[in-house]
């Protein structure tokens, strides 16, 4: 099969780009390993009080279904349960698991999203220990409880919102604790740093936290920091948030049976006693990082950029790369929410259309403004310094462009 644009990743960025490309008269194929389109949209379900009245409930699955329907009605080829194992030439996309061995295209758009960062702790290979993303997917998409009694480790915007989702779905969450404080694997996870980060996030985009953590959070967090975290325990939706206890061990023979929590000082040193809490499930949260493998094999230079969540392909503010015919969009460019990814998908489509000399319904500049707007209105911010990261990337991009 030959298409104008091959898109890898059927998440918010990839699907939105496909719709935009097909709507402007070019052919597109979207390929994804998952069994249904939507990517991280599929697990999302939350309320956003700052959104327009008719958009306050964000039902990611519904959004995904609508995008899929739109794409299909525009003739976009969607390949699900298909793994891309190679991209080469300009372009051949080698696929496994489906009927076709490969497709070729003039343009390649990588919207491969992100992977969860592991949070190793003794016992974390036991069945019953899952990532926070898995918890979200099983709860909101599959409607299967991840366990009967759940402890969450890692206190951050994503784990907090998933905790609420678990509660809303009727799952018993026994509590949330800090991740382990090991010197080799537990960087920047002390109680103080955790609270500071939450405060950053709350200050920048308070919507979710105001609602979810209650007014308590915004008002008290600064004081908590100032007073050296004398308040060790918050309760959100009746779930204890242990700001001064870190998970140090997951126990069990064949499955998770309990977790060991260790009291820690504000700077993360063990202080005081340990306790064992019986649970059958542990949810680990440590953030996301961009999945860049295909970009690297396609010849794209990579840049380490912690502000964007890890290593990202060098790209311009319009989603182009230095490799001709290669574009990127979504979390592969830095960790942000679904609405930003969708705006980036539309922007990538506009840039692709422009590169192919096609008139687009939206100009590249307009699409860039939409990305900025989506970022400003994001209900949930994963990385505190995302804007700084974007600026840094643009500077590197400009410097590289100046050199030709």
């Amino acid at each position, binding site marked *: 099969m030959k298409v104008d644009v091959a898109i890898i990743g059927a998440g918010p960025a990839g699907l939105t780009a496909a719709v935009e490309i097909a709507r402007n008269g070019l052919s597109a194929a979207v390929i994804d390993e998952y069994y249904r389109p939507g990517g991280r949209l599929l697990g999302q379900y939350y309320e956003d009080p700052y959104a327009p009245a008719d958009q306050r409930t964000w039902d990611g699955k519904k959004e995904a279904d609508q995008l899929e329907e739109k794409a299909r009605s525009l003739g976009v080829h969607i390949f699900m349960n298909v793994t891309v194992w*190679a991209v*080469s030439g300009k372009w051949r996309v080698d696929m496994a698991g489906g009927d076709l061995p490969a497709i070729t295209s003039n343009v390649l758009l990588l919207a491969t999203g992100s992977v969860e960062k592991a949070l190793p702790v003794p016992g974390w290979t036991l069945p019953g220990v899952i990532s926070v993303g898995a918890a979200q997917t099983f709860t909101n998409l599959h409607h299967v409880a991840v366990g009967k009694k759940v402890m969450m480790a890692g206190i951050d915007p994503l784990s907090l919102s998933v905790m609420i989702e678990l509660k809303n779905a009727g799952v018993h969450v026994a509590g949330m604790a800090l991740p382990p404080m090991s010197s080799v694997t537990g960087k920047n996870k002390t109680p103080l740093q955790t609270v500071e980060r939450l405060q950053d996030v709350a200050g920048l985009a308070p919507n979710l936290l105001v609602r979810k953590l209650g007014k308590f959070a915004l008002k008290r967090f600064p004081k908590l920091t100032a007073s050296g975290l004398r308040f060790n325990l918050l309760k959100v939706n009746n779930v204890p948030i242990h700001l001064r206890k870190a998970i140090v061990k997951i126990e069990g023979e064949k499955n998770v049976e309990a977790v060991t929590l260790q009291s820690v000082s504000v700077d993360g040193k063990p202080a005081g006693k340990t306790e064992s809490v019986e649970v059958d499930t542990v949810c680990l949260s440590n953030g996301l990082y961009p999945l860049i493998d295909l970009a690297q094999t396609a010849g794209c230079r990579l840049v380490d950029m912690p502000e964007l969540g890890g290593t990202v392909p060098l790209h311009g503010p319009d989603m182009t790369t230095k490799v001709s015919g290669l574009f990127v969009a979504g979390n592969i460019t830095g960790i942000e929410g679904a609405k930003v990814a969708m705006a980036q998908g539309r922007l990538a489509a506009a840039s692709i259309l422009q590169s192919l000399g096609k008139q687009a319904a939206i100009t590249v500049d307009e699409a860039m403004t939409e990305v900025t707007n989506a970022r400003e209105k994001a209900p949930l911010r994963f990385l505190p310094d995302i804007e700084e990261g974007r600026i840094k990337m643009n500077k590197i991009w400009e410097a590289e462009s100046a050199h030709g």
Partner: protein
Amino acid sequence: MSYKVVVAGGGLIGASTAYYLTKSGAEVTLIESKDIASGTSGACDRAIMLQSKKPGPTLDLAIESIALYKELEAELETELEYRKSGGMIIIETPEEMAAMEHMVERQQKAGIDVKLITGKEAQERQPGLSKDLIGSTWWEEDAEVNPLKVSFAMANAAKSRGAKIKLGTPVKRLLTENNRVIGVETPTEKIYADAVVVAMGVWTPKLFEPFGVDVPIIPRQGHILVSERMPSFLHTGILSAAYIANKLKRNHQSEDPDPFGVGLAIGQTHSGSLLIGGSRQFTGYNTETNPEVIRKIGEAAVRAFPLLAKARIIRAFTGLRPYTPDGMPILGPVEGMDGVYIAAGHEGDGVALAPISGKIMAHMVCGENSGMDINTFSLSRF
């Protein structure tokens, strides 16, 4: 005062040279731009297949080397996964049969007891082989070893015998004084030595370029596919006749009908993964894997072992084999430059020849008699 030697290059050959130098009592500094086995030695297979090797100096070296391998696990007190596995060269076409008959006849004359066996005998010896094979060779003396383990064990043994190992330290240039090499320069320091051994594989020529010395080593890229872990089923090392044909091609300047030089070389690691090679291609210093080459190697593997169609390839890599025009390594001093030695250019024989190469270099540098005629391997032959 003991003899000071710098070894440049931390691959199999450099690590082995450093190890044997410490055994000879030299004061050794091993300098490596990245890490032990980070280049060719970390991107090769485990075969020590000698049955097809043309009788002559390289084969003689290899046989000496195998004798060293047999003692090395005990000597280094490390598991190297050395095993006398025997080896087969599988034959798919009548043309290949003719070539292999010729090869076997030649080897037998030289006293190497390689046999031709039928396709059915090959299947009995190695279950899973395709029924379509028309025959195979078999030699029980072929062996295998884990080149990563050998590299690290040699480097560690050298270190525990007092060698200094500087990783992440590129050798920028050779320091000379009146046509004599007196040491090397790194980004941070000058290291003076009585002798320098350059064991930088495909990167060796670059160090000699400034002196107008042409070292005819050319990188020849080889792909290797790695399968998921499987139960141990491969009892022996296996090459295809096509692999041998491609290996023997000395055509780095001519057009080739099979530009990828694909032939099968398959072995199983202790972990259970299959290492499936290979290709031979002149692509400069490029080490990217190519999906088309990967596919062709996959085809060769499934042709030989139809049931591998159900196995997964979990990764692939390429290594840059240090090719020389006559297929023999360069071991020895450099004419017109005192104090410097080359130990490089082993192409696919580095694994087999690592111990003996290191030992020879140590003897040479320390002025000991290795009892071998090694002039054959000197740079001046080109």
